[in-house]
């Protein structure tokens, strides 16, 4: 054989080497991530490869309670769509609802029980077993129960409805503690209070935007965040183009243009805090112009005489003839509807303002009329859940109790007061006084980070539950939520946690709360409902009903339309009318701007900030992604010499935040707006350390009548820091430059 010289050999090696490198480079440059074809070794029984199955359940991204259908392939949730048979969502979803999958498959979910080692709030947790966790909690609470100290146990959770609420209540009652509270920043306390005064009802009425012809919205961003956005959007579509040749008109009254403002035919920026006054002005004009023909016309004109359009115009800075025009249109349209929310419902005069708006509805004669306010029947169950709402006042009490050391064990579930309360109320500091904080949570948000013990809950897509949409849709409705995928991690549905805690604590708890799982509990309750509603029958019938309900995801009685609420006496309405004067924290001279925090369609009150799809969804009005900004009127910006991207110190009497400026054409001069939702100190990789949270600098003014936080009643001043920061927007130039992009101008109805 031929000898290979050392030199040749080296050459060959070299050549080979080059080949190898080349190969690697090529491979690297074209490689793709390898996916397993069938991800589960032991698939669930209803699993067949390549075939998608749909499960109906309830969305939990916001309190509207939309029904959703989840598409499952190979045991994994692939897509969330609206449940077509659900009366609230009617097959539609909002962006937040779609993003529920990011919550389920979120990389930052809590996967096992955790115990805080190291100092509280430091975020050093170590994994422990469920037994350990439950025994710790159980023994602690058990001891308190034995020495009748159970009232030192407090349960705080977000807006919980349906039978889970009953379960919590039962648990606390059996424990002997009446400190079961709910806190939800977005809960419409003022609206409830006002409706109580005007209509004497505890249940949110159904606002029939769908059939309205003239919609007057005082600050309520009904398309983005107010109460039930998806349902309202459906209604809006119908209001605009659903009726042949009869296009409804919408007017939006708010200092900063919201989604609903953009959709409206007319956007009116009244002076902040005077919306209620404007309502009364319109009411006055409506009556005096003779558009109201009720028998009690004189009382009304007497009650409203102080609010002549001229005076109101001076206060609200809305021109007099505009007020008259609105009054005329509102009074003469076949179906007029006035709603109030947003900043209008977050001033010191919130209730008074909403009462005024209610008066408008009364004067329009739309109560219990199609296109007006339709009173809901009492919900199918858990009617009293609303009464558990702590409201801001309630939270202050809780903080007081914690400070005073009256709280030994604090159970927190699905609410994040550390984020959703102003800094200077000191919830975080108060927590330091609590010996044991237990968080029942799926994510490590700011409040959960403060816990000593984290009991990881399964997400709503992995748990059993039921819900009554609030507001209802005019007839009795209840939805069932069921697990659509196998639980991903070592987590438990919150209901099951409560039940196992009950077993752990012992005493009479397990005797009364004898259900093994939430599923059993719910099924039994539904059976009771089923029986109560008179349809006594055999097992099969209920089983059939139950199966049907499960498949549909919802049960309802469309027949039973509730118009039977007595139209409230005008006297009570007139009596309830109060002068809606607003107070603001901070003196105008040193705090020249009114701070307008607003909920965003992307993050709602911040609970959506940990979902990447929502972080990457451009803000509907500004196209900004990832981060916060403060909106300024172009004129104001010019006066102060502020350009987009200049970082400002927004300083209120209660604190200050540092945030880049954004020039926003549709905001009232003298008002600055900061979106709520960003500015998390924890809550996973997508939310953490991004933007600012305006709630933290809100001064703690309280609406006297509802005891709720007046978060739109803070004044601020702006300071240029000299820094600049790129605001990440997807928009280029937001003017059409005279190009026919939006189509030829025309007025077809």
């Amino acid at each position, binding site marked *: 054989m031929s000898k290979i010289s050392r030199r040749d050999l080296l050459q060959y090696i070299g050549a080979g080497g080059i080949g190898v490198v080349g190969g690697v480079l090529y491979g690297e440059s074209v490689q793709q991530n390898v996916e397993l074809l069938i991800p589960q070794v032991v698939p669930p029984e209803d699993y067949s490869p390549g075939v998608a199955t749909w499960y109906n359940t309830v969305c939990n991204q916001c309190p509207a309670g939309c029904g959703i259908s989840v598409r499952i392939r190979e045991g994994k949730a692939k897509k969330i769509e609206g449940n077509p048979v659900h009366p609230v969502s009617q097959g539609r*979803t909002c*962006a937040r609802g*779609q993003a529920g999958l990011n919550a389920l498959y979120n990389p930052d979910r809590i996967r096992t029980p955790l115990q805080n080692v190291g100092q509280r709030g430091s975020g050093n947790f170590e994994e422990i077993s469920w037994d350990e966790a439950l025994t710790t909690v159980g023994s602690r609470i058990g001891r308190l129960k034995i020495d009748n100290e159970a009232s030192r146990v407090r349960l705080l959770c977000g807006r919980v409805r349906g039978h889970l609420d009953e379960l919590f209540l039962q648990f606390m009652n059996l424990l002997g503690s009446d400190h079961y509270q709910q806190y939800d920043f977005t809960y419409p306390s003022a609206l409830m209070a006002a409706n109580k005064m005007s209509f004497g009802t505890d249940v949110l009425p159904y606002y029939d935007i769908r059939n309205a012809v003239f919609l007057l919205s005082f600050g309520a961003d009904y398309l983005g965040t107010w109460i039930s956005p998806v349902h309202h*959007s459906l209604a809006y579509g119908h209001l605009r183009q659903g009726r042949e040749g009869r296009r409804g008109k919408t007017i939006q009254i708010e200092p900063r243009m919201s989604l609903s403002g953009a959709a409206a035919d007319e956007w009116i920026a009244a002076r902040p805090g005077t919306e209620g006054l404007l309502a009364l002005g319109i009411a006055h004009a409506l009556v005096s112009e003779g558009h109201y023909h009720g028998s009690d016309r004189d009382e009304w004109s007497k009650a409203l005489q102080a609010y002549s359009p001229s005076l109101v115009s001076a206060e609200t800075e809305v021109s007099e003839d505009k007020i008259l025009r609105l009054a005329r249109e509102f009074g003469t349209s076949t179906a007029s509807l006035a709603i109030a929310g947003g900043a209008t419902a977050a001033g010191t005069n919130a209730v008074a303002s909403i009462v005024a708006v209610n008066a408008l509805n009364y004067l329009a004669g739309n109560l219990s009329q199609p296109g007006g306010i339709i009173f809901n029947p009492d919900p199918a169950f858990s009617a009293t859940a609303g009464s558990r709402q702590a409201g801001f006042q309630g939270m202050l009490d809780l903080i007081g109790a914690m400070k005073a050391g009256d709280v030994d064990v604090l159970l927190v579930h699905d609410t994040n007061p550390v984020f959703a309360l102003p800094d200077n109320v000191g919830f975080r500091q108060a927590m330091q006084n609590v010996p044991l904080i237990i968080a029942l949570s799926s994510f490590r948000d700011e409040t959960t980070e403060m816990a000593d013990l984290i009991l990881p809950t399964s997400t709503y897509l992995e748990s059993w539950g039921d819900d009554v949409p609030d507001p209802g849709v005019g007839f009795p409705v209840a939805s069932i939520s069921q697990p659509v995928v196998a639980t991903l991690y070592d987590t438990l549905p919150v209901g099951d946690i409560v039940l196992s805690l009950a077993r752990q604590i012992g005493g009479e708890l397990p005797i009364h709360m004898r259900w093994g799982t939430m599923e059993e509990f719910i099924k039994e309750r539904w059976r009771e409902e089923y029986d109560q509603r008179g349809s006594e029958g055999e097992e099969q019938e209920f089983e059939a009903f139950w199966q049907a309900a499960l498949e549909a995801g919802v049960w309802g009685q469309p027949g039973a339309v509730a118009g039977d609420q007595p139209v409230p006496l005008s006297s009570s309405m007139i009596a309830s009318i109060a002068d809606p004067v607003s107070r603001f924290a901070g003196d105008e001279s040193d705090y020249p701007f009114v701070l307008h925090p607003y909920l965003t369609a992307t993050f709602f009150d911040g609970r959506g900030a940990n979902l990447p799809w929502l972080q990457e*969804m451009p803000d509907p009005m500004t196209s900004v992604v990832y981060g916060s900004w403060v909106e300024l009127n172009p004129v104001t910006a010019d006066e102060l010499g502020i350009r987009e991207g200049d970082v400002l110190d927004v300083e209120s009497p209660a604190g200050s935040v540092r945030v880049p400026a954004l020039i926003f054409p549709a905001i009232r001069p003298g008002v600055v707006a900061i979106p709520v939702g960003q500015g998390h100190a924890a809550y996973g990789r997508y939310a953490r350390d991004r933007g600012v949270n305006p709630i933290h600098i809100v001064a703690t003014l309280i609406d006297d009548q509802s005891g709720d936080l007046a978060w739109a009643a803070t004044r601020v001043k702006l300071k240029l820091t000299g820094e600049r920061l790129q605001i990440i927007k997807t928009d280029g130039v937001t003017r059409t430059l005279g190009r026919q992009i939006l189509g030829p101008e025309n007025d*077809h109805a």
Partner: protein
Amino acid sequence: MSTFVEKLRQYRKPGYYDKFDYHWTMTIDLDRCTGCEACMVACQAENNLPIVGEKRFAENREIKWIRIERYWEGEYPDVKMRFIPMLCQHCDDAPCETACPVFATYHNQDGLNTQIYNRCIGTRTCAVYCPYEVRYFNWFTYTWDEPLEQQLNPDVTVREKGVMEKCTFCIQRIRIAKDNAKDDDRRRVRDGEVVPACVQSCPTEALVFGNSNDPEAKVSKMMKNPRGYKVLEELNTTPSIVYLTKVHS
């Protein structure tokens, strides 16, 4: 002479797309659209659009097959915001199609402007030629943070770096619908049987999708609406998306 002109015209507009069973078309009613962007997230969920991250957004390299464009009109206080959803218009005379040297994009017999990812070599000419700027390029190979990838839709491929991608009118749903139609011996898909993700999610029902070759289809009726127009009609790309202007009152 006239016959010659006639021939020439035929030669220039052969009109394949009317010969076939379907001509998928969408109408978007701007009077209903509220700019809520549910469609954008729905599309992201359905079509495995990557989560590109803050940095990529800052570099203006996001991928959104459907986006909402914003246009301000007037100044405060009489300022108006106009939204217009912008997605691939599936033009019958698409400028992008002629551009591709390797047939990675062409017009299929359903009137869809298709994009074949694994044939694309990434010249990006189509994106330059597209006047609607609805073609998005994969500047990188994007990955999903564990376990987000479990959500990925198995009916849609995940694209690698260096390929162009864009709205497909959810062609995977069209395929499924056609198969179902075949299974129960129908030649045609029923109206409303195919619903792209964006149309499905739209809370105001602003988007309507269907086969415009079928005069009974809802979309055909919508197209007759006097408010109808096509964006950048003057470019003669004959889009398959008809917009209905917002009504000003």
